[in-house]
């Protein structure tokens, strides 16, 4: 019965891999953009280069990996299966890739037509993704905090999408609206209710499983995702009422909830039973540390809003939260998921006659650790470049591009190994 190992419900390896291999290329593009944009690019959150780079990372990198990973993990974490995983993956991957490029181009060149096109492409793509994943998971009872969390994360993505489309159409048609407050709300739904809850719900499963830690306690696990969505609903209400105080109060609550989760996860990691500190463990330590630092900035700004008058405040927050927090946690997870998937598919292709190489040999620790150091170096340079852009921003952009190119190379090496082994399996015995 071992051979059954849930394989029949896993999508083909091509479904998630296309997302994972494309995402780092958007990281490379964001780095090159900062390299080329000149020292004023991060002078405020509203420069064309800052907005373009932000969306190359949030849509091109983060949403790309999260969509691919969710389609992969849905059957294992919830028991739901997607109706047609490969065609859905192809469409969502293509739409996200074209949509992220179009949106970044629209920001960079201030093109009204570009914003409308991006709204249409990303709107249709994410709606398709929500339809496929939401349709699969909605009928499943919420028997675990993870299932409830995944459902709420999809609702969060729907919120972020609706606000993003509204923002893009506003920019495309020159409508008059409170753009900064709406952009904040869009970021809140995207980073808090979608990316944040997804991360929380997946952590419930993968932190104990991959790092051999104690579990998250049941009661808090049930409550955290609905609390985050509740905060976002209150934030939306505050926006509708035009209440800046209400918005800051909710932002403060979100910051405290997020910090609580990150601190607790760090505590779990300290109790892990796996002695070795591999790249995933280090990436998670730094990712959680950065998330705590960024959420502390959010809390500080909620208490002392005048802090955000410095133009570099929000770019610094974005770098620490996005590149330092989410990207570190995502890459750390990719370094577990991609070798494991490769192993799983090779093992099943071998049908018990030919054994797949050991998971640790599929992507050795050394190249992961070096890529991780490159990512952390880029991170320090990016944060420093907000304060001293003149000498540092170009270098930081280059370092970020190199770190992401290295990630692509590491992931590609597992694909090459997969192809080599599959080719060997295809040869008739004795040939």
């Amino acid at each position, binding site marked *: *019965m*071992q051979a059954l190992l849930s394989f029949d419900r896993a999508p083909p390896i091509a479904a998630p891999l296309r997302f994972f291999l494309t995402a780092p290329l958007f990281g490379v593009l964001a780095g090159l953009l900062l390299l080329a944009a000149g020292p004023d690019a991060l002078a405020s959150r509203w420069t064309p280069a800052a907005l373009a780079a932000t969306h190359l990372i949030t849509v091109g990198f983060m949403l790309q990996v999260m969509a691919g990973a969710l389609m992969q993990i849905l059957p294992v974490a919830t*028991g739901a299966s997607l109706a047609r995983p490969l065609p859905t993956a192809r469409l969502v991957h293509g739409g996200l890739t074209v949509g992220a490029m179009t949106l970044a181009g629209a920001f960079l060149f201030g093109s009204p037509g570009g914003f409308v096109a991006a709204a249409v492409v990303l709107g249709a793509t994410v709606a398709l993704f929500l339809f496929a994943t939401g349709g699969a998971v909605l009928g499943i009872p919420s028997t675990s905090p993870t299932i409830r969390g995944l459902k709420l994360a999809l609702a969060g993505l729907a919120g972020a999408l609706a606000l993003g489309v509204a923002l893009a159409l506003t920019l495309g048609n020159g409508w008059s609206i409170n753009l900064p407050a709406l952009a904040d709300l869009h970021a809140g739904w995207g980073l808090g209710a979608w990316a944040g809850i997804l991360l929380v719900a997946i952590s419930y499963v993968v932190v104990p499983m991959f790092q051999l830690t104690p*579990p998250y306690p*049941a009661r808090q696990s049930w409550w955290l995702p609905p609390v985050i969505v509740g905060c976002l609903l209150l934030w939306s209400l505050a926006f509708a009422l035009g209440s800046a105080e209400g918005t800051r109060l909710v932002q403060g609550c979100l910051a405290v909830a997020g910090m609580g989760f990150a601190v607790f996860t760090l505590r779990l990691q300290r109790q892990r039973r796996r002695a070795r500190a591999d790249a995933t463990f280090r990436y998670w330590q730094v990712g959680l540390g950065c998330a705590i630092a960024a959420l502390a900035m959010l809390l500080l700004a909620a208490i002392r809003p005048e802090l955000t008058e410095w133009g570099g405040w929000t770019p610094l927050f974005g770098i620490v939260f996005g590149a330092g927090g989410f990207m570190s946690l995502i890459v750390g997870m990719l370094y577990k998921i991609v070798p494991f998937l490769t192993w799983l598919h090779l093992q099943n292709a071998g049908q018990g006659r030919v054994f797949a190489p050991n998971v640790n040999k599929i992507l050795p620790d050394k190249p992961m650790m070096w890529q991780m150091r490159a990512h952390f170096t880029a991170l320090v340079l990016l944060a420093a470049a907000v304060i001293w852009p003149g000498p540092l921003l170009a270098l930081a952009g280059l370092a970020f591009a190199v770190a992401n190119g290295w990630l692509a190379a590491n992931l590609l090496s597992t694909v090459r190994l997969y192809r080599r082994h599959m080719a060997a399996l295809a040869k008739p015995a004795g040939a």
Partner: protein
Amino acid sequence: MTHPKSSRVIDARYLEPPEPFVLTMEALDTLPAGEKLLLLLFREPHPLYKVLKQNGYAYETELVADGTFEILIWRP
């Protein structure tokens, strides 16, 4: 290890996949008629559920306060 729910317990809480699955399958192969097997895990094993259903087993899952899923398995 014994447990109020069953004397046959697989504590797979600090084991890496696929070990919990393999141990459960081995234990079910030797489970005497009328007895129940209790699996302890830090996650809900949906892939295992499917195999259990395919092989005619029934199961009941409870998430307890510390975050452990207790999965009681038997042949009806």
